């Protein structure tokens, strides 16, 4: 079957000259090396090595899936981290050594599959092999002695051939030297086909994954209720292009987040306040269209638009904050997304107001949707919905760093004017309230986003944001297709038996002896039964009454 020479079913290799090193030329060496690489033993070794090599990536945080974990790990293990990093321990699955293993494995795979495919194509057209001289050593062997000559050998074999052919066997008739007739039959070529499809589809998976990673991209966008997003590079908060990304693939569309609804469990006391549904209601505008279409994005139900899939991956509150500076001018007024820190949405946020005069301002603090005071005087939130929203901010003067993003505040060089270490305590605000900053530095207003609501109803007072992941993966469908082929090939190759069956008819003084036997090619627990079945149907066809 042109399987690797150390395949269980192959004949043991002859110890030929290939082992005698010194006499090998370069071609001999190459051939020797290639044979080693495409042997079953190498494939097995590389598979096990791949399994082992995958382990460290589950022990050490990975940049690709858990970048914050890497930062944390580096902080916790300052001596170990550089060593881990040097051996690409934070990027195991793209590391040189991991890639080397799977690439070698796939080279071995290709080297193994190509000759087998060629061989299989030939086998598909070849006739079954000659009937062995002796069948009695083979599996399921049975013989039937037929009394005085009614049925002649050739006719008996003809009908056996018929039965076999109808059962899906490929058949070939042979005439032996001793005047015996036989039919040699083989079936289950699909087993090898399945095996080849399986292995080839694995290559397909690898290639299409690689292509998708190179031409696709993924980006993130945090979008507050009422705001919109246009599909151009600048509107993305973060953007991770593949190697061959080209921004002409960004199709023009726009969407607005009309509302973001969360449903909380209210009945079950064990899970009071657990979110049970998130729905982002959006309006999408394809191309330059004026008229929008209302759509929904939910967890487990992304939105497809303009070659993108848009996933809902996170949400939180974005209090609307207005800052007036020391001169009384509005220096900042917008919704600021605060990042949730716990299940009750105690959230952390940062504001930078470089435009404030005469002194630049920045703030960091917490938002509590349902604030309750702790013994320490601080707050916590005890419910994720807006029951008692409170904003608590520490305020700094000085020039804030702007290059570290909108969620981080580097306190270096800043002076706290309200907060734990300042004379003035943190600023605490409820929706609609304003507080003056100390020293005439200005004022902060926590705007009520729904001022028209009834007094005491704060349900709509703070807008929510949704964080969306926006992906383009042009080869995703191919990956799925190959994965399905992998599964189909696997099923075919594991559960379709490949077997040979022989029926031989020998004239023996006036009577006739019929012999039946089979040979399994690979795992075939049903062979015995199959041979018996052929024998019984044959007997029936010949009109034999068989005594056992």
């Amino acid at each position, binding site marked *: 079957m042109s399987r690797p020479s150390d395949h269980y079913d192959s004949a043991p290799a002859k110890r030929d000259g290939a082992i005698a090193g010194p006499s090998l030329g370069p071609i001999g060496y190459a051939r020797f090396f290639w044979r080693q690489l495409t042997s079953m033993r190498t494939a097995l070794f590389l598979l096990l090595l791949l399994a082992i090599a995958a382990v460290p990536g589950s022990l050490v945080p990975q940049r690709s899936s858990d970048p914050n974990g890497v930062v944390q790990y580096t902080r916790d293990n300052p001596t170990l981290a550089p060593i881990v990093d040097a051996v690409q321990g934070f990027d195991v699955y793209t590391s040189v050594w991991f890639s080397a293993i799977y690439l070698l494995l796939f080279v071995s795979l290709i080297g193994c599959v190509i000759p087998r495919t060629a061989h299989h194509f030939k086998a598909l057209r070849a006739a079954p092999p000659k009937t062995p001289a002796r069948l009695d050593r083979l599996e399921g*062997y049975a013989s039937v002695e037929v009394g005085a000559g009614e049925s002649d050998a050739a006719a008996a074999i003809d009908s056996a051939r018929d039965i076999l052919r109808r059962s899906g066997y490929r058949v070939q008739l042979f005439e032996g030297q001793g005047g015996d007739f036989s039919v040699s039959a083989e079936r289950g070529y699909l087993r090898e086909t399945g095996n080849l499809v399986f292995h080839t589809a694995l290559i397909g998976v690898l290639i299409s994954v690689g292509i998708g990673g190179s031409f696709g991209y993924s980006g993130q966008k945090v979008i507050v209720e009422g705001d919109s997003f246009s599909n151009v590079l600048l509107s993305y908060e973060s953007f991770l292009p593949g190697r061959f990304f080209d921004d002409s693939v960004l199709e023009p569309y726009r969407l607005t987040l009309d509302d973001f609804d969360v449903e909380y469990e209210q009945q079950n006391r064990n899970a009071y306040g657990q979110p049970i549904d998130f729905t982002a209601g959006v309006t999408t505008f394809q191309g330059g269209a004026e008229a929008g279409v209302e759509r929904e994005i939910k967890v487990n139900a992304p939105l497809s638009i303009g070659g993108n899939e848009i996933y809902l991956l996170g949400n939180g509150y974005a209090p609307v904050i207005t800052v007036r500076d020391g001169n009384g001018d509005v220096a900042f007024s917008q919704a600021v997304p605060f990042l949730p820190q716990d299940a009750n949405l105690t959230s952390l946020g940062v504001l930078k107001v470089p435009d404030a005069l005469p002194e630049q301002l920045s703030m960091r603090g917490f938002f509590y949707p349902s604030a309750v005071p702790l013994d320490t005087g601080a707050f916590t939130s005890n419910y994720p919905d807006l029951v008692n929203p409170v904003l608590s901010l520490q305020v700094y003067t000085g020039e804030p760093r702007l290059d570290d993003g909108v969620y981080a505040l580097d306190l270096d060089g800043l002076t706290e004017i309200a907060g734990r270490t300042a004379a003035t305590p943190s600023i605490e605000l409820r929706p609609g309230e304003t507080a003056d900053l100390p020293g005439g530095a200005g004022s902060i207003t926590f705007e009520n986003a729904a001022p028209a609501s009834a007094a005491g109803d704060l349900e709509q007072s703070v807008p929510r944001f949704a964080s969306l992941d926006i992906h383009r993966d042009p080869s995703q469908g191919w990956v799925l297709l190959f994965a399905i082929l992998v599964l189909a090939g696997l099923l075919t190759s594991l559960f379709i038996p490949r077997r040979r069956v022989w029926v031989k008819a020998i004239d023996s003084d006036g009577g006739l002896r019929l012999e039946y036997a089979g040979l399994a090619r690979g795992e075939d627990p049903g062979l015995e039964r199959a041979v018996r079945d052929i024998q019984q149907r044959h007997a029936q066809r010949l009109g034999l009454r068989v005594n056992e």
Partner: protein
Amino acid sequence: MTEQFVSASLVAIWSAMGVYTVAFILFTLDLAKRSAGDAESAGSTADSSSTAESLAFERAAASESSSGRSIGGQLGNAGGITATLVRPVEDSPAPKVYRLERVAFALTGLAWLVHVAAVLLRGFAQGYVPWANMFEFSLTSSAIIVGVFLFMQFWQNLRFLGAYISGFALIVLGVGTVNFYVDVVPLAVPLQSFWLVIHVFVAVLGTAFFALGAGLSITQLLQSRAAAGRAVGLRFLQTIPSADKLETLAYRVIVVGFVFWTFTLIAGAVWAERAWGRYWGWDTKEVWTFIIWTIFAGYIHARATRGWRGSRSAWLAIIGFGAVMFNFTVVNLFFKGLHAYSGL
């Protein structure tokens, strides 16, 4: 209503555990008794389903040590030609039936029915599939493992694995209920998907087949040690199939598990694409699912590689199942990742 269902489910869990315990003790006693060479307890009855199959498995032996059996024929009715069939038969003894084992097996069946009731009650109580957190996963996976073991008997007599399976189920169920119990809560939003039903269920099926495969492989290793004269005191091994046959059985069971596992991997990727926006991201759970898949792919290759049949491939099957258990316990509890649904 929910409350009654939940407490009924708990009552059923504890009852099932009680009966499993008795079954486990009896299975173990039976093996001990067989080791003591107590042949008298064995009534011998032919077990038709397993005889037919064992013909196929002992075929190698059969064609070696065949003694032809031929019975002369009488003349048939007019028109029919009389013929005589000669088929080699093996001299395999009729399989023995061990009374203690029978009782233990029946008790396992009983415990399983109660166990399944517990699973169903929990499901009805919460209105979604009972495998969305670690407790429920323990509850349901142990039921499926025992179920696969029980139904396997229609195909093969694997009752000698009874102590292993009932003991295993008892531990999973016990630890799951005592250490990981959580009350009924609404289904977390990311889990609200059709894929929870199919992906996790098939993963458990795969696990069940791997568990049986590991059991068979362990027995195979014991058997080959016994053949080498190194398993003193385990004379019950003489009453169960040979190492070769165990290896074939293990292979056939594991291959089914492997197909389920492959499906789990693909279905998981499809779900991850829907829920997390990427089909593969080397999340810890994904990593371990991949490792397990690769180990078993290695196992299948080992079985086809000269020099790797026998004990070596058996070790791979055991290591593979060890990785499955590791994935379910250590990875769930101690590794950080997106699959943080242990419910604790």
